[in-house]
């Protein structure tokens, strides 16, 4: 098996070695598979490993590279995909018992994009059942059980991209694909100490991905750095004529070239003063240091505040209504009772009662809010705040009591489809990661990636890894 430091290398570092033929994609894949078999089950990180597919793809990549046909920075790089992305011929469980045997005869668009650039799929990452759309009270709301945090296995990874967070943090793959409707990339990235990008709504095709909330679901990368996220995002972003929610060609595509250095421009940072009502003291120290680092390395860091209004409630109403429509058959048939979580078994019944008028009111509020956020982004390029106001929570916590608080930034960001990037920015005294979140206007994913990259040029939190025996 390759040494651990190589398994924690960034996509950029691995790509250099693969391109120069110093590193074999097959050997790299075998090493990640071996580590994933050993540690993945201990963490409940995978829904399933797909060694046959992985080795086949790795061998093809190796052959192509030897022949001089190098496809780019993801060629021969192993990754894991959240188990709500369809992979032809392999069960796609959506994290729920009801769909344990579900098999699609096609690949999700994202899987297809990654295949086309030569990436190697190691397996399907564990997730919260139905991406948490039916609501959940416990970390165990998953077909695989609770995913354990590699930094402290008595703690949770957060959800719903639980496995994706654990896999990247534990060095079981070079990157993973997650999805977010509200918090599902940002929260696991923060709890697991990895970099995660929630792209602008409509930049990544959702064809072949489980739908939860048609107007809020996004797919994005979770990786070792902002720069890695940019590389992966460039491979998966783009207009899809078969997914009508994707943006037009010129708005959806994203190109990344290290030479262009993320098209550097001076960023005006707005440090949010009302993103969280309270920040846990254990997080505050790291956050204050991050604030200082931003002030040192960015030309302008000023205090900013989110507009006040019923935005979170509007986001909740939209999400609850759309999910109850997406899973109407499951709810009405009573099979929703097969879900693991006690809240998930019944919340759908309540959501079905939300009226069309209320749903439409929430959509109208979205329009108002989009205008307000556009105005706010006239003064700032990027907003920054703690990704979460507390570190990873215990595995058996009642989430209704311990992880339930106002989240205006998450509500606003997801309601308006804004891009966000969470990067590690320190640790608590108990050695749990703390995340810093950057948010930009719709379409300006480049700004959050640039902010993250600059932050990571001056800090080394993203290079820290848990000790796993």
């Amino acid at each position, binding site marked *: 098996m390759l040494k651990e430091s190589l398994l924690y290398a960034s996509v950029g570092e691995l790509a250099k070695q693969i391109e120069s033929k110093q590193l074999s994609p097959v050997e790299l894949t075998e090493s990640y598979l071996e580590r994933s078999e050993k540690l993945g089950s201990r963490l409940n990180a995978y829904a399933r490993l797909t060694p046959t597919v992985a080795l086949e793809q790795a061998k093809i990549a190796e052959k192509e590279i030897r022949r001089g046909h190098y496809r780019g920075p993801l060629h021969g790089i192993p990754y894991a995909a959240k188990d709500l992305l369809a992979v032809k011929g392999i069960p796609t469980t959506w994290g729920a018992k009801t769909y344990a045997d579900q098999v699609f005869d096609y690949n999700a668009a994202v899987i297809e994009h990654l295949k086309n650039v030569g990436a190697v799929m190691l397996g399907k990452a564990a997730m919260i059942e139905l991406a948490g759309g039916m609501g959940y009270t416990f970390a165990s709301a998953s077909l695989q059980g609770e995913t354990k945090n590699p930094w402290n296995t008595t703690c949770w990874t957060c959800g719903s991209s639980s496995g994706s967070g654990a896999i990247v943090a534990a060095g079981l793959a070079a990157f993973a694909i997650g999805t977010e409707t509200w918090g599902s990339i940002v929260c696991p990235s923060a709890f697991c100490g990895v970099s995660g990008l929630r792209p*602008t*709504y*409509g930049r990544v095709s959702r064809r072949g991905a489980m739908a939860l909330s048609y*107007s809020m679901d996004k797919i994005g990368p979770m990786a070792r750095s902002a720069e890695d996220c940019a590389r992966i995002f460039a491979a998966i972003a783009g207009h899809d004529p078969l997914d009508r*929610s994707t*943006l*037009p060609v010129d*708005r959806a595509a994203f190109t990344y070239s290290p030479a262009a250095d993320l098209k550097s421009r001076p960023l005006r940072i707005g440090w949010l003063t009302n993103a969280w009502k309270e920040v846990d003291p254990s997080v505050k120290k790291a956050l204050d240091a991050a604030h200082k680092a931003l002030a040192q390395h960015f030309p302008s860091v000023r205090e900013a505040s989110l507009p006040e*209004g*019923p935005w979170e*409630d*509007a986001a*909740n*109403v939209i999400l*609850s209504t759309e999910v109850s429509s997406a899973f*109407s*058959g499951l709810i*009405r*048939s*009573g*099979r929703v*009772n097969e879900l693991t979580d*006690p*809240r998930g*078994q*019944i*919340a759908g*019944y*309540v959501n*079905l*009662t*939300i009226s069309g008028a*209320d749903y*439409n*009111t*929430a*959509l*109208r*509020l*979205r*329009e*108002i809010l*989009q205008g307000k956020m556009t105005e706010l982004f006239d003064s700032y390029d990027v907003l920054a705040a703690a990704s979460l106001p507390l570190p990873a929570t215990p595995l058996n916590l009642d989430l209704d009591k311990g992880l339930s608080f106002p989240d205006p930034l998450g509500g606003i960001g997801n309601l308006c*489809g804004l891009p966000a990037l969470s990067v590690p920015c320190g640790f608590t005294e108990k050695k749990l990661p703390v995340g810093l979140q950057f948010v930009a206007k*719709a*379409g300006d994913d480049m700004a959050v990636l640039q902010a993250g990259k600059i932050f990571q040029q001056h800090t080394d939190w993203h290079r820290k890894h848990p000790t796993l025996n």
Partner: protein
Amino acid sequence: MKKRIGAVLSRREFARRAALLSATSVVSPAAMLDLPSAGGGDYQVDAGGPKLSPEGQAEASARYQQVLSLYGERLNDEQKTRVKKMCAELQPALDHIRSYELENGNAPALYLKPLYEREKRQQSTSANGKP
């Protein structure tokens, strides 16, 4: 075999459900939710629940009755209690979004695509020098 709710309803079943739903308008909301009445002021669902106005409470009660009438047979007592609580918890969010002053011309935002298209239109209008 599980009973399929959501399939076509018989006329008798429809009438039974309609009766149950309409009953919500004559039964005291507080009685339906087993909530203590605060004598004309705000209502408290339980120690940790949201405070609801009488109207809000009536609506939460109706919502709960609707769930019971359609799906009550498959819920156990504990689940009914949770559903009741969730109906009450949903109400403040609905009240909150309804209280925001919207004008008739405030249209719903669907996807971001229209937002971009509007931006494009504005750009081309200003480039043409037309209003």
